[in-house]
């Protein structure tokens, strides 16, 4: 079949080669900066300034800083506090995003017939504005005399304005949810849309109620979509630092990426910051690995 699929006379690698320039470019843009980060993390310190000096030869790499950082994250220290806090925020934000986003995606995929196009456009609309601008808009809304406080006071839910921006974890988590939920809804919608309608009709025909159909058929079938969408928002959330910067700026809500950015901006903390970057990358690789294994398994099941 492969001979028929390819053009007559064209070598096997011909069509793959079209992807090569892009792939090579992306690899370079990823590998080279990452190698630079490794070189700084495994580098030495200038003895006078304690400023980081990169070592480019992997054979000379000095892993002292990196092991120190890992030990601190695993066994105790400021970095551990920040890491656990980040896990908590990202975890809660992801679950919240799913809980809010799944119904929206489901509705658009399954029930919005005439309004589907409009709803999709509305969903994509936030992408026209950068993440940063959207967060700044929230800063404006959440100020003491902002719309949120005015509204709540008018309804009578609160007596005086609530100071949302003074270091509340809830504000940061909600900021993360708001910022990343479009990235979750769209792939989720695509996955649910792809579910074969006939599966659900069969379930209904066999006597299952709508609720049971959802729980027993739709939800498991959309599991891959949920996983993919979660990964799409989990990965950047772990590296997010300006949500916290804009909505809180209080050290008690500072996240892992804030610590990284602080260290990388300082004169002497470059190696430590780079080591934290590597640690975060390794951690995320493990998460991605789980996702890839799960996808592969699902693909195998599907082909059975």
């Amino acid at each position: 079949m492969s001979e028929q699929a390819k053009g007559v006379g064209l070598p096997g690698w011909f069509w793959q080669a079209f992807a090569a320039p892009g792939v090579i470019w992306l690899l370079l843009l990823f590998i080279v900066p990452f190698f630079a980060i490794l070189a700084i993390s495994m580098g030495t310190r200038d003895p006078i300034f304690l400023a980081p000096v990169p070592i480019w030869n992997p054979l000379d790499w000095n892993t002292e800083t990196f092991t120190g950082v890992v030990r601190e994250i695993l066994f105790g220290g400021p970095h551990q506090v920040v890491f656990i806090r980040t896990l908590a925020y990202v975890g809660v934000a992801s679950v919240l995003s799913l809980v809010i986003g799944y119904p929206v995606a489901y509705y658009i995929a399954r029930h919005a017939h005439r309004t589907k196009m409009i709803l999709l456009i509305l969903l994509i609309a936030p992408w026209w504005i950068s993440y940063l601008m959207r967060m700044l808009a929230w800063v404006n809304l959440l100020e003491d005399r902002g719309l949120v406080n005015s509204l709540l006071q008018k309804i009578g839910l609160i007596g005086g304005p609530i100071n949302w921006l003074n270091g509340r974890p809830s504000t940061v988590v909600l900021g993360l949810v708001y910022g990343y939920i479009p990235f979750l809804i769209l792939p989720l919608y695509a996955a649910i849309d792809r579910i074969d309608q006939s599966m659900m009709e069969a379930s209904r025909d066999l006597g299952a109620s709508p609720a049971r159909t959802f729980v027993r058929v739709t939800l498991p079938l959309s599991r891959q979509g949920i996983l993919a969408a979660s990964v799409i928002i989990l990965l950047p959330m772990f590296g997010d630092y300006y949500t916290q910067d804009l909505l809180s700026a209080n050290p008690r809500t500072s996240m892992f990426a804030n610590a990284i950015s602080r260290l990388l901006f300082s004169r002497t903390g470059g190696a430590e910051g780079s080591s934290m970057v590597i640690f975060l990358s390794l951690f995320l690789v493990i998460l991605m690995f789980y996702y890839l294994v799960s996808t592969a398994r699902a693909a195998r099941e599907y082909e059975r």
Partner: protein
Amino acid sequence: MVFHPRDPRFRSLSRRDFLRRSLATGVALPSAAAILAACGGDGNDNAGGSDGTGDIGFSLTPTPDDPVTYPIYDDNPMIESDLEPETNTTFTIFNWIDYLWPKKLREFGEKYGVEVEYTTFYNSETAVERIRNGELQADVYFPTYDYLPRLVAAKLMQPLNHDYIPNLANAWPSIQSPFYDQDSKYSVPYTIYTTGIEYLAPEVAKAPEEYDNPYDIFWDGANAGKVGLYDEYREVFSMTLLRNGVEDINTADEAAIEQAKKDIVDAIAATNARLTINGAYAKLPTGTFYVHQSWSGDAVAAQYYTANGYKPGDLGFWYPDSGGVIGNDMMAIPANAKNPVLAHLFINYMLEDRIGLQNFGWVGYQPPLSSIEPDTLVKDGWVPENLRSAIVTEDQFGSNELILPLEPDVDAKYLDAWEEITSGAG
């Protein structure tokens, strides 16, 4: 590294700006490092290291008690007197963003018939790197006093020919020969600023002067949620050390640093203090903060940022009579400047009373010129009466402390403590 009020990390909120600190900042100045390897530090003849007066001939960490007079090197001489200014050229200024009124630069260019260019840098490290590797041949550079000794030792700056700079006499006498450059051999002063407490008078429970220890305002829960500190470890530690009665803000005393760290954590807990960069001039005048650590220039600039019903008359600025934090910036000429004569003339131009005052009106940071007196500044409307204490006077320069660069091991203690504070772990 001494933090600078014009560092645009503190001004801009763009993500691109946050990310733009390149890896190059981590690379030390090789020449300076090699030179410094011969130097033990601030001139102490301690055993175990080479003495500070070794190969360089002067201390790289001068203090008011240990001032430095730079040598003039044979291979880096000053230009001759009575030369004609360069023509048919582009005159380049290398400075922080928004730190010099572009109109004044333009007028200078028109006066001498040359094109002008204003190139900016984000921080001292990248600026010095660009000069060092010859990528940029700026004519005038604005260094910070912590980098000046190293720049001179590395022969990156050229000695100044005072025949071209008669207006240096307009500056305060005490700053014409400061401890970090006696006889102003390689630099002239540009601005001077203090770090004090800015507050919204109608909103705070008590004004700073009503406390027994004015700095205690940062620990008062009455203003909870409305308190801001600078996101810069040396500034916050200096303030806390002064509050605790430690006079030396560059102290190496571990117990003092540890106590300061605990106190800063307490302040954040008691008041929900936030660390910001632009809070003093951009957020306090709109009511987001009622109290904020502030540079004098930020307080002066704040009068233009009032909103939400607040007026410039609501602003207040407190600064101690003595023993506070003070800073100053300079102008210098790189050794590889293409237009050294014009550079000298420009420095002289900026030291003119009239020009300096006009530049202050735009920049907000004050030049240390004798003709600029608190009374004239208030009378002519540059600074409102309620912000009079944000005007820096000459006697303050002598009786207050600069944030000096620390020995690396001492710096590490401050940084580790700051790490604990900023991760909310303290």
